[in-house]
C-alpha cells in the first residue's frame, strides 16, 4: 500500500460510508419504492390538474340530466378506507413485536376494509346515470376513480401476498421490507383518495 496515505485519510474514507451498503438490500428496496411512489404521485397530479382545468373552464360541465354526485355512500367509503391506514399500522406494530397472530388479524381486517371500499365503488359506478364517454366530466370521473381503484386493488393483492407469506416460517425473521412497502403503498392510496374525495365530491 502506498505509504503516502495517512491513516487519517483512510479513516475518513471508510467512516463516511461505513454501513456495509452492499448487504443493505432491504434498505435499497425501500428507498427505491419511495422513489417509485413519488414518481407515481406525478401521474395522479397530472390527472388532478386536468380535472381542475376542465372543471373551471368547461361550459357544459355536467352531462345533460346529471345534477351532481351523491355524497353519502362515498363518505362512508372514505371513512372506512382512511381508517384502514391505522389498522395496517397496528398490524405492522404486531409484526415488529413478532406477534404473528395479531399481525394476521389486523392485516386481514385491512384487506376486508379495502374490499369493502372497492365493492362500494362498484355499486356506485353501477348506479350512476352517466358513463365514461359522457363528456369530459364522465371521462375524468371514471378515469380518476378507476385509476385509484386499480391502486386499491393492487394494495389488496400485496396485502394478501404478505398474509400468505406469514404462514411460511422464516419469512419475517430479519426485516420485513415487503410489509413496510405494502403499508407505505396503502397510506399513499389513502392520501390520494382524500384529495380525490375533495375534488370530486366536496367541490361540486
Amino acid at each position, binding site marked *: 500500500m502506498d505509504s503516502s496515505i495517512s491513516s487519517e485519510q483512510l479513516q475518513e474514507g471508510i467512516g463516511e460510508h461505513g454501513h456495509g451498503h452492499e448487504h443493505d438490500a432491504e434498505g435499497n428496496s425501500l428507498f427505491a419504492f419511495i422513489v417509485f411512489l413519488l414518481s407515481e404521485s406525478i401521474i395522479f*397530479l397530472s390527472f388532478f390538474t386536468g380535472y381542475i382545468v376542465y372543471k373551471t373552464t368547461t361550459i357544459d360541465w355536467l352531462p345533460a340530466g346529471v345534477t351532481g354526485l351523491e355524497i353519502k355512500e362515498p363518505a362512508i367509503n372514505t371513512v372506512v378506507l382512511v381508517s384502514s391506514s391505522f389498522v395496517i399500522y397496528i398490524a405492522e406494530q404486531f409484526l415488529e413485536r413478532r406477534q404473528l397472530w395479531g399481525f394476521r388479524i389486523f392485516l386481514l381486517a385491512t384487506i376486508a376494509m379495502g374490499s369493502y371500499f372497492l365493492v362500494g365503488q362498484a355499486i356506485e359506478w353501477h348506479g350512476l346515470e352517466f358513463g365514461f364517454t359522457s363528456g369530459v366530466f364522465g371521462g375524468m370521473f371514471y378515469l380518476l376513480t378507476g385509476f385509484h381503484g386499480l391502486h386499491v386493488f393492487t394494495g389488496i393483492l400485496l396485502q394478501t401476498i404478505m398474509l400468505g407469506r406469514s404462514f411460511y416460517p422464516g419469512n419475517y425473521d430479519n426485516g420485513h421490507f415487503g410489509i413496510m412497502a405494502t403499508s407505505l403503498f396503502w397510506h399513499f392510496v389513502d392520501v390520494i383518495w382524500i384529495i380525490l374525495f375533495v375534488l370530486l365530491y366536496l367541490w361540486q
Partner: protein
Amino acid sequence: MTDSQVKNTNIITESYQDLSARDWRRYFSFSTDHKVIGIQYLVTAFIFFLVGGIFAMVIRGELITPEADLIDRTFYNGMFTMHGTIMLFLWTFPSLVGLSNYLVPIMIGAKDMAFPRLNAAAFWMVPVVGVLMIASFFVPSGSAQAGWWSYPPVSLQNPTGQLITGQFLWILAVAISGVSSIMGAVNFVTTIVKMRAPGMTFFRMPAFVWTVLSAQIIQLFGLPALTAGAVMLLFDLTVGTSFFDPSKGGNPILFQHLFWFYSHPAVYVIILPIFGIFSEIFPVYSRKPLFGYKVVAISSLIIAGVSGLVWVHHMYASGTPGWMRMIFMLSTMCVSVPTGIKVFAWVATIWGGKLRLNTPMLFALGALIMFIFAGVTGIMLSAVPVDIHVNNTYFVVGHFHYVLYGTVTMGMYAAIYHWFPKMTGRMYYESWGQVHFWLAFIGTNLNFLPMHPLGLQGMLRRVASYDPEYTFWNVVASLGAFLLGMSTLPFIVNMVSSWIQGPIAPSNPWRAIGLEWLVSSPPPIENFEDLPVVISEPYGYGKSDPLVSNLEGIIGHSE
C-alpha cells in the same frame, strides 16, 4: 442476494472465467451484468439510429426538389413522425442509458446496479418498443403521421372502424418506453444514492455520475405527466372519451401542457449526460483537473430543477396569455445561467492545457462548439417575439438538430471512442476515427446550418413541398445530410473491425483518473476484486494523490 442470484453469479463466473467481452454470445443472453446490459442498450440503440437515419435520408431526398415527387405525402408524414420518434425514444434515450449503465456502477465503486434483474427487464422492453414502432408501418392505415409530439386533434383522426392503427401502436410504444425509463430511473437513483463505495462521497463522484443522477431525477418527475397525457389520448382514440376533442368539450391545449411538462425536461435528460461526458473527456485530453468541479456538479441539479419550470416556451403560439409568456420567457432564459457556468468551466479546463487531439477529444470539441451555437439560437427562441416569428419553421428544426445531432450524437461518439478500449479490451483505429469525425462535423454543419436562413425566410417544417425560392439552401442541406449519412460508415467499419482484431488495449490507455481505469479492460464480472476505498476527489491531474487507498486489491490479478 438470493440463493438463485448467487447460483447465477457462480455459473457466470465459471463460464466466463477470463471475463471475455470477446465472447459475443453473452450479448444475446438475458444477462443481469450491468456491463452486458449497457452494451446491449448501446448496440440496440445504434441499430435504431441507423433506421431513423435512413428515414432522414428519405426526408432529405424528398426535399432536394421543391415538388413532392419522391414519395407520397402520407408516407412523408409517416417518415418525419417516425424519424423524430425513433431518434428520441430509441436512439438518444437508450444509448445514454446504456452508457450510464456501463459506467455508473464502476465509477462509484459498486459491483452492479441496485436491481440487476429490473435493469435487464427495462432493457428488454426497448426492442419491444422498436418492434411496435416499426410494425405500425404494416397496419392498413400506415404509421403514425401526427409528428413526434402527436398533438390532438390531428393524432385523433382515426380511420373509422379501425382499432389497431399506426397511431395506436405509436402511443402503446411510447407508453412502454415510459415504463422502461421509470424502471431505469428508480434503479439509477437508488444505485447512486445507496451503493457508492466507502469514501465515495457525493463530492467525490465524477461529474458524469452527477449528470446521470440529475437526468434520472427529471425522468422520475417528468415522465409520469407524459404517461398521463398518453393514457388520456389512448382513451380518446379507442373508446371515445373526449378529453382532447374540442368538438365535444375537450381541451387539446391540456395535452400540450402534459406533453411538454415532460418533453421539454426530456431534452435535459439527454443533454445532461453529454455534459457529463464533456466533463470526463476534457480533463483527460487536456491533462488538467476539471475547472470548478463542485460548481459543475451542482449546476446539473440546478438545470434539472429549472427544467421543470420552462415547458410553456413550446406553447407561445398556442394562445398562451401574455403574462404567462413573460414568466416562461424569463424562466427559460434562466436555464442559460447554470449551462453557461458549465461551458465556462470546460473552456477553462481546456485553456492552457496540453491538448491531445485523439478522436474522443475531437468529437467532444466539435460537440461543444455546436452546443454553443445551439445555445445561442436557443436563447433567441426563448424570446417571445423571435419565437412567434419563426414558430413552426426550419429555424426551430435547425436549432434542435444542433442540440440533438451536433451535441448529443457527437457527444455520444466521443464517449463511445473514449470508453471503447475499456468496454472491449481493444483499441479502435485512430485514422478511421479522424475520418469519421471530419465527415460528421462537416456534414452536420452543411445539413443543419442552412435550416436557420430557411426558417428566418419562412419555410415551414413538416412539408413535403416548398416554394422554389427555398431551393438553394434545401439542396445544400440535403447534400450535407447525405454526407452525414455516409459518415456513419467509417464508424461502423472501425467499431466492428477493432472489436474483432484491434490491438489489445491496456487497462488505462488514456492515462485517465477514475475508478473505471483502475480495473482491467474489459472489467471483471463484478468490477472489483475488493471494493475500492476512495480517498480523494476526482480529476487529480497534475497532483500526486492516489484516488484509492487499496489500489493493489482492486486491480487484483487482472493486471
